């Protein structure tokens, strides 16, 4: 270990952290992630965000798919559902539809979301289900030990692309904007304070919020999406970016080879629950359907 690295938390700092209450959102299970994995920042970020928003533990449900990232629900002290590979969003939609009082956070990896689960994203987004979807994008399949994913860069050598990946990666931000997600933002595991802020905003948004989080897989990607590379690449969105302007958001998303962090787009529109309530109102005023 580098001798200049100091312990992260001094005793007094720890007390301060404990005092703010966010530790009550950590579960007793210790994360199973590799030391150094970006996902630890997400655990810290979500506990901070839930604490700041004052959401009671029992009122939050974290729904995930399958992957290293999808192990997340076990590590927070809320209700959790670790579902099937790719089915995060429809299960979360069911939970929210059944009980609108719950705060629903859906979490998955790039493979879980954009490969096997890709068919569900447009529909959760267009329906504006009032929940937050966070994709932890490490550009790789971590849990299955290092195969390419739909966001893997061209040229990357993984176990399933031993002669280098030639598939064009997807552009999740542009997709989500096109799908009419009503809140689209990007964060990075290496900027934990910004990450926690973005999580807080995303959860506070009424409607379908999509937070894309860049995260290094320190075990299976030693060359591409490393902390060192990402630290040098990430930048903030320009100060004058107007997040209510969809075309500007598209342009920003498209312009950056190098990922920009921040809020790309936000809009207010009726949620799925609003729409269902409206349908119910109209149905009650309509003549009874035939037997």
């Amino acid at each position, binding site marked *: 270990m580098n001798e200049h690295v100091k312990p992260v938390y001094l005793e007094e700092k720890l007390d301060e952290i404990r005092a703010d209450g966010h530790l009550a959102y950590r579960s*007793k299970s210790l994360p199973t992630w590799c030391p150094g994995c970006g996902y630890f920042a997400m655990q810290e970020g979500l506990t901070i965000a839930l604490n700041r928003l004052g959401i009671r533990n029992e009122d939050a449900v974290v729904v995930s798919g399958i992957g290293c990232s999808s192990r997340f629900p076990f590590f927070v002290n809320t*209700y959790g559902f670790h579902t099937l590979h790719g089915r995060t969003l*429809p299960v979360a*939609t069911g939970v929210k539809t*059944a009980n609108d009082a719950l705060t629903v956070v859906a979490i998955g990896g790039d493979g879980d979301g954009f490969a096997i689960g890709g068919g569900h994203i447009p529909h959760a987004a267009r329906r504006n289900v009032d929940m937050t979807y966070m994709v932890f994008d490490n550009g790789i399949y971590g849990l299955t030990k290092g195969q390419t994913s739909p966001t893997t860069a061209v040229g990357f050598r993984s176990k399933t692309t031993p002669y280098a990946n030639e598939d064009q990666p997807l552009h999740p931000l542009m997709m989500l904007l096109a799908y009419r997600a009503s809140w689209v933002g990007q964060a990075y595991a290496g900027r934990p304070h910004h990450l926690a802020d973005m999580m807080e905003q995303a959860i506070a948004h009424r409607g379908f919020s999509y937070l894309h989080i860049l995260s290094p897989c320190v075990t299976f990607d030693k060359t591409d999406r490393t902390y060192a590379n990402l630290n040098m690449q990430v930048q903030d969105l320009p100060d004058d970016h107007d997040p209510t302007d969809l075309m500007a958001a598209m342009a920003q998303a498209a312009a950056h080879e190098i990922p920009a962090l921040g809020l790309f787009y936000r809009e207010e529109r009726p949620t799925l629950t609003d729409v*269902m309530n409206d349908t*119910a109102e109209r149905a*009650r005023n309509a003549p009874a*359907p035939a037997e």
Partner: protein
Amino acid sequence: MAKSRNGTDIQFAIIGSAGDGTIAAGDIMKRAAALMGYKVIAFDIYPPEIRGFGKCISRIRISSQQTYSLKHKSDVLISLNDSHAIAHVGEVRDFGAVLFEDSPIAAIPEGGHISAHIAAAQVPYGFANRRICEEATGKARSRNIVALGYAAGLFDIPAEIFHEIIAQKFAKKPQAVTDDNIRAFDAGFAAGKATFKLDDVRVGMPQQVANGKDAVMMTGNGAVARGFLEAGIDTYFGYPITPATSIMERLAAALPRAGGRFLQTEDEIAAISATLGAGYAGARAATATSGPGLALMTEMMGLGVMAEVPFVVVVSQRGGPSTGLPTKTEQSDLNLAVFGGSGDARRIVLAPTNVEGCYRCAGMAFEIAEKYQTPVIVLIDLYLSNRFETVIPPRENVFAPKPRIKPELPENQPYRRFALTDDGISPRALPGDEGHMHTVTGLEHNELGRPSDALHQQMNAKRHDKLTSATRYPGLTTCKRFGDEGRVKVGILGWGSTFGEILETMYAAQDEGISCAAMKVVMLSPLPEERINEFFDDCDHILVPELNHEGQFANLVSGALGRPVVRLNRTTGAPMMVDEILAEVRRLAQTGIGEGTHSPVQQQGATT
């Protein structure tokens, strides 16, 4: 129970093209019969193409006691269009009646007039339908109603009954439409009444006037939707597929009014995922599909079993495999329903045999799913989905949810969602319950729900054994024996829609003096093995007729019991024919015990 049925038992077949109002006439006929207090079963056949003038058939069987199958031979054929009806003249029994248009201005269809095809033993009734109609209403449109009137006059059905149904049917249209149709009916009625009768068909009022007003005419799908609604279904997520779609369409109209949530999802995977999510959150959640949809849903069924989440999936089977025969009936998704998915994933599968059963199973499915914390499949088929039967629903809602009891929080101990208990059922907390936070998973887990392989064997046993008591679930018929008591020559074991034909066969065999019993099995998983085994003990031969090629139910039962059965398999797309089953029963009745297991009929392909 009486051996064969007494009283009225008459089947009408109304045949014409889509433009002739064939299905509408059938609808009025069956509603009228039900209002009179008769029991009705009816099945309509539409042309495979959505538009055009393809053949429509409405078959309506009217009887004093409820029957669960259509007769092979109709007593009366009403032709609204000879070009379609000619091919069906043969289905009229001897001394049965054939009603047809004989006015000279009607164009003679290609292939000649239907009268040329009526056999000597059948009784022809030609009447000037078009002329009567035009004289009564000034138009030729209501010829289907004239034909109904003619039939009512001829077979002695009170006109007032039809007047009431016609008024109901056209209630949303201008009054003139009702008036015209009643005039058309009355003109037909007068003509029928004046006709010299040569056949032996008579309907008349039923002998014991049952509560005709309480009887509701329902299809299997309508019964499912009604059962769901009475059970207070909270969410329905679904994806359209024949023959389940009409369940979805009914709920699309009814659920928002009833305070529930309805959503058409992007596919069946999303439908079942959201259904499971809603079930997890405490809702009464259901979806409905057919075989291809169930194939997509199997992974999520496994998660429901593993994570012990209650929800309900109705599966209406059609011909398979793959896209198969979307508009033909079959019973070939039993394997998928009972076993589909990875691992040992026992779930509850209910297969009602008639429309009332569809209503009861759908209504009770939520309660059963909640009690056992597991998915419940209600397995029906196209024939059951689309056919009409008279059902008298209970006056009180017996399916409504009871108030939930929140689990107690153990002191100084973490909440164990998957606690190993005596009956295998663990205390279930719902999101929102204070202090019970936990995560459920499709990974094998310990009692807390945390991923762990250590208890795999115990947990498998828990998930399996907790269901066994469901075979004696109070208020639910999981299997039932009919016919002769004690030792019999032939026992017919059946499931699903085919049981109607099985019962009919059994009565016919008894009439021939063959000692015969039948057992229907409604709960296919877990299987009520003990009672099926007792039935085997009583029968020299067990015959299992079913609408699939491989004998999926026969395999299930003989695999579970380790006892041989005789199979009768058909995949014609149509319901099984009573005559075919009866031929097999006769053959077995003449065969010694232990012989005859290899049925000649079975050489059609099924393996033992």
